[in-house]
């Protein structure tokens, strides 16, 4: 549902990157990384990407590559670190509360130019 807002953010960043790096050739690929906890639908991101890319010649033929980052947590009590596949934020070793150390952020990672 919030994929449109996220894509708007991506395109704002892309425009800045194009300006800063004085990109004049076509962008072939855009790499976007997003955590599992962010509950983003890749298909929906692709849809909004296809809508926004029409407004920019340098991006009009670009492909969006999305990588979903797995959830990694660390126990605040015993410092155990492990990957999480279910939304159980209780340490599986000692029962303490865990904090998320990866998989709750999203960022524009890189672009590939012709």
């Amino acid at each position: 549902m919030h994929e449109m807002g996220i894509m708007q953010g991506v395109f704002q960043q892309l425009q800045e990157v194009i300006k800063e790096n004085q990109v004049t050739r076509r962008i072939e690929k855009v790499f976007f990384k997003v955590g599992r906890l962010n509950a983003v639908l890749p298909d929906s991101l692709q849809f909004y990407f296809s809508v926004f890319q029409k407004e920019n010649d340098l991006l009009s033929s670009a492909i969006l590559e999305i990588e979903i980052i797995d959830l990694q947590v660390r126990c605040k009590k015993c410092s155990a670190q492990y990957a999480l596949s279910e939304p159980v934020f209780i340490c599986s070793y000692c029962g303490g509360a865990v904090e998320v150390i990866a998989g709750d952020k999203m960022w524009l990672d890189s672009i590939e130019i012709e």
Partner: protein
Amino acid sequence: MEIKIVKNVKAENEVQASEVRQKRKLKNQSMFNFMSSPGSGKTTLLQKIIPRLQEKKIRPAVIEGDISTANDAKKLQPLNIPISLINTDAFGGDCHLGAHVILEALNILHDDEIDMFLIENVGNLVCPAEFDTGADINLVLFSVTEGEDKPLKYPLAFRVSSIAVISKMDIADVLEADVELMKKNILQVNPEMKIFTVSAKSGEGLKNLCDYMLEKHKSFKE
């Protein structure tokens, strides 16, 4: 050729959220952000807790995020407090309140005497959880009508909140809602969550919730 970027796509929202915090700090104002699914009882809860806060000499204001009507704001009008209604579109607009609209609301309510902002976010558990409003505390409402597994379906909303309010307790028995399971599921997603069980209708639990909010309000001022 590859250009490495590594830029947070929510950076702009985060800058605006910290601006919200700075502005409030200058005036010693606290801010609580209420999130929930549609129909969990955010407006009704606000109707009931605002007079209790006023009794404790707090001057609250409401930032109301209603997608397309003024109905929620109208319900709160008799309380005679400053209300900023953030309306998007007649056919349903934004799915959440970004920090930029909270900043606008702060500007609109600039001249009012306010101690505490209460944000009624758009009824939705996905998008509001993703975007920082600049509040001190996020509260998530979870009504007994919703099914015990909601925290497991929308973990982010329960991760970013520090207070969970189980609402509509007066009908829990009729619905055979398993309140203990609701609590267990909340704590599974966020073991540090402070949980309150309330009924806006009977008044159950409202005092405890308000006392805790007041305690937090004072701690932010220090």
